């Protein structure tokens, strides 16, 4: 019985396997050149991370040794910024089929054009868990990491997709708009009828925990657009104050 939980990353060349591993496990000294056959890293928490080369001969060799691999988690990484038809070698699927838990990650979802729908179709056909992630913006990374370690998901892929479509936070500090709470019977609640639809939508998301950038990600707006709406809510008396947190 192995002391380590083996997590295998496979997928076409250039799909973003190394970047994804680095984003998931920043403590690892990840190399970005193609491994000869496969490359192992020992991550914290008893995880052994294995990146499999994408060359045909490497895949052939790996398949011959596969029976001896006790794979806990198999991760197929697919570049979702390009059409996936013909890009997914069946041997990638044979490798992750050996795993107890299997997923496909639509990577590079921050690209202006993406083909996540094709990746979703593949996931449905093969019974794979679907993740959308962007090492560049950090979208979906925590969700995937949580699933790899615990088997539990933190968010649905759509949330990661929405998050990936907005630019990264403009600052390391995010502002949390704290809405006005009516705590006394004699305290008059602000009149919501004076709000525009977009103000109402943003106000619904202001829960005293979410920051402006998170709200921007959830609504598909830019940081500046949400800031403008929040400022307007301040002027109209719906936001009591701001708190700060790391973006």
């Amino acid at each position, binding site marked *: 019985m192995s002391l380590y939980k083996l997590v295998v990353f496979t997928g076409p060349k250039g799909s973003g396997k190394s970047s994804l591993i680095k984003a998931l496990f920043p403590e690892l000294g990840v190399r970005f050149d193609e491994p000869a056959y496969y490359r192992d890293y020992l991550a914290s928490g008893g995880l052994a991370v294995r990146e499999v080369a994408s060359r045909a001969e490497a895949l052939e060799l790996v398949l011959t040794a596969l029976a001896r691999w006790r794979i806990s988690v198999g991760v197929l990484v697919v570049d979702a910024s390009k059409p996936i038809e013909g890009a997914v070698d069946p041997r990638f699927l044979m490798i992750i089929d050996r795993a107890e838990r299997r997923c496909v990650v639509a990577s590079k979802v921050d690209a202006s054009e993406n083909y996540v729908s094709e990746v979703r179709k593949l996931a449905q056909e093969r019974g794979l868990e679907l993740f959308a992630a962007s090492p560049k913006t950090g979208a979906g990374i925590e969700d995937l990491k949580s699933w790899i370690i615990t088997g539990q998901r933190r968010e649905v892929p759509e949330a990661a997709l929405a998050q990936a479509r907005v630019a990264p936070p*403009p600052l390391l500090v995010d502002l949390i708009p704290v809405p006005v709470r009516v705590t006394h019977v004699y305290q008059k609640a602000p009149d919501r009828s004076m709000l525009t639809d977009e103000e109402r939508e943003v106000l619904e998301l202001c829960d005293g925990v979410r920051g402006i950038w998170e709200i921007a990600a959830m609504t598909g707006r830019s940081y500046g657009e949400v800031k403008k709406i929040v400022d307007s809510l301040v002027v109209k008396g719906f936001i009591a104050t701001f708190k700060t947190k790391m973006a």
Partner: protein
Amino acid sequence: MRLLVGFIFGFVGFFLVSVEIAKALVRLRKVLQPTVHVLVPQVLFSYLISTVTRERRSPQEVNRELFRLGVWGGSLAMLKLAKPEELARFWPKSFDAGKLGGFIKLFGSAAWYIFAGHMPAIRTEARAPKLVWVNLEESPGGDAFYKVETPEGVSVWYFLAGAYEGATLTSFRMLGEEERFLAMWRPLPGRNGLEGYYALREVGSAEIARACVDADPEFFSVVSWEDSARFAEELLGVKIPPIP
């Protein structure tokens, strides 16, 4: 025995009174100090400058980033500290350079006083039709959070100029004047202070930029018009028209 008890009570009483006197003296010392305690904000501000300096390649880029951070901070400060109805009370209903100058002096001084702990000298003048030029010069002597050592070529005044720019643009929003007014701030050349303008948008970006350069040829040398526009849109959602 009675003497010993009396002595102990006397000693405890004297100790308690001494503590109260010491507390009163501490309060008095705090009241008499010329500025608020600035050591912790100074350390944090130094840390910010060090971090930005390490991340950027040139002093110009550091200054530009400090300006950007200032825009964000100034907007937040304006939202937290000013009430729209207070701003509206002193805001001229129509463009009047004299009344606008009064507004700028009042709120410009108040903002400076809140953060620096001393009053600045503010001068305003109508430099072009529907454009008010502002010079803000700090009074020497007082300590403040921004009075920290910086690397060669890096100036804390870019942070302060950004803060005034963010605060002013936010005040326009709070007043419902965002679509009518523009403002930009930069460090005052050769002195400790800021310079900038309040103008009606209808003046046109080219005309406003010309007035700025006439007043100070280096006005846009580090933080350009486009930089101001980019930061305003990215951080505040304020749209500033480009120079044609």
